[in-house]
């Protein structure tokens, strides 16, 4: 066994006990034959899996395998892109995400998102950033906003660092703090699902560790779907892993989905094993 293999296995073994626990968990989101196409060119094809509640689902795969594209289909962020078409069924609980029964604004307040680079609103104070989602949805009462602000910042493990300077601008924070601020901003509207698009790729290792720790804490309150380039990260933070790969026509397809421990230790597909062991990607 090479060194690399044993490292990966060491990490994933620690997860075994935890990741088995979601097997009977209710389903937060379900994807059936989900495909995304841009101007007729398929970018993601026929994805099928369930996102278990209060667990972390990681989307892994090499560049171009459609991880981010798939993630953005879940909160209808492709609606903004001209020529983007999402087909198949995406469900949030019993609600058909693309069925027209739920307004996108409501949907997006129930499925929050954290982006690759921290993107606090530059013109707003820390406080205004955190409560912005509530304000956009019409909440005006100061006591509610104050409570939500403290709760969200506490949940994002940044309250103690910023509680004395809530009036300062987001840009006065470090990159890691900014990302936690953005997580707090997403949590403030109390979403059921939180989508994270490579949330640590722009951060240093220490900030990355703190975000990963945070993910472990907040998954008790919110279901998480995280895209990551970093396989160790997927192994560390996730309960379920979906492995995507680019097919011959350059569309991303799902190769294997399963408990993280299984994907990292005993995958069914040899391509998964090759990717996990760093043979490509």
């Amino acid at each position, binding site marked *: 066994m090479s060194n690399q293999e044993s490292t990966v296995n060491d990490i994933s073994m620690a997860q075994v006990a935890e990741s088995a626990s979601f097997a009977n968990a209710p389903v937060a989101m379900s994807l059936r034959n989900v495909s995304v196409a841009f101007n007729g060119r398929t970018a993601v094809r026929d994805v099928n899996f369930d996102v278990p509640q209060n667990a972390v689902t990681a989307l892994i795969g090499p560049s171009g395998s459609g991880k981010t594209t798939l993630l953005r289909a879940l*909160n209808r*962020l492709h609606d*903004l892109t*001209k020529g983007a078409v999402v087909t198949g069924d995406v469900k949030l609980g019993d609600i058909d995400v693309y069925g027209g029964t739920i307004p996108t*604004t*409501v*949907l*997006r*307040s*129930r499925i*929050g*998102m954290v*982006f690759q*680079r921290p*993107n606090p*609103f*530059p*013109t*707003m104070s820390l406080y205004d950033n955190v409560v*912005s*989602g509530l*304000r*956009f*949805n019409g909440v005006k009462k100061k006591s509610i906003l104050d409570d939500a602000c403290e709760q969200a910042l506490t949940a994002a493990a940044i309250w103690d660092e910023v509680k004395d300077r809530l009036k300062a*601008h987001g*840009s006065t924070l470090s990159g890691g703090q900014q990302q936690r601020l*953005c997580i707090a*901003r*997403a949590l403030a*509207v109390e979403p059921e699902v939180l989508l994270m698009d490579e949330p640590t790729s722009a951060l240093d290792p220490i900030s990355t560790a703190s975000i990963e720790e945070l993910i472990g804490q907040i998954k008790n309150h919110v279901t998480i779907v995280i895209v990551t380039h970093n396989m160790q990260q997927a192994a560390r933070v996730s309960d379920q892993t979906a492995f995507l790969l680019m097919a011959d026509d350059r569309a991303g397809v799902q190769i294997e989905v399963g408990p993280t421990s299984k994907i990292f230790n005993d995958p069914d597909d040899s391509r998964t094993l090759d990717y996990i062991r760093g043979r490509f990607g």
Partner: protein
Amino acid sequence: MTTLPLDNSHHIREHLRERASATVKRRQFVSRLMIALCWVAIALAALPLGDVIINLFIHGWASVSSWAFYSQLPAQPTLFSPDAVGGVSNAIVGSGVILGYALLGALPIGIGIGVYNAESDSRFAIVLRLVVATMVGAPSILMGLFAFGLVVVQFGFGFCILAGAFAIGTMMLPVLAASTEIAVRNVPATLREAGLALGAKKSTTSLRIVLPAAITGIVSGAILAISRAIGETAPVLLVIGGSQAFTWKAGDFGQALPLMIYQDASSSYPAQRAQAWGIALFIVIVVFVLSLTARIWANSKQKERR
């Protein structure tokens, strides 16, 4: 098939080293030459500008530095009192009022068009962009004629300050729309996405996230529009009537600074021509102070965000 002369690569290396010193010398020479040319270009641009400013101060400073310039109404000099030109208080107020009304109308509409053009891909937006681009380059007298035809004649307001404001406003509109569009386009898409991902409507995102993030660019555009408008003679010449009395009422005959320059400059009295210089200097100072203030404000705003 030829084999690569890998064993000869030393020769290339030696050759390169020999050439190196010659190359460096040539590059240094070209570099110095280019820098010298840059200075020549700067001088060519700066000399006439410096000449204008120096002349403005030489001929206009006496007027600008006298209190009467700001406090008195214009007077008609006579042969017996050739220096009694009075001041331009009515023109300063007139220009201020015209700009104020013009901004009142042009700011919201111009910014609205700019935001729409930046955020929409509709066919209407494409046409609107073309219209804005064309209007930016349109000669200002066209706006004067437009205001004359519409406000003075069609609506029957007659010559008045309001008509001047209308002309100046239509002149500022495309500048505001174009600069707003650029400023809004420069706001990173990820901020827009962050707003939408929080459940904000598209319009809410535009108004409360994108627009504030673009504000420094929009203000710069507004300052540019004001700077252009404050010295604009042709449109006001046609429509405000050129009163010598003091007024700020929208329906009255009005007076404006550039119009005063136009009248004074053709006078046979040296004191009136000096007053024209003074007004020109005054406009340059106002525009300079405005631009400087805007720049300082924008810098501090930028620093605040970093």
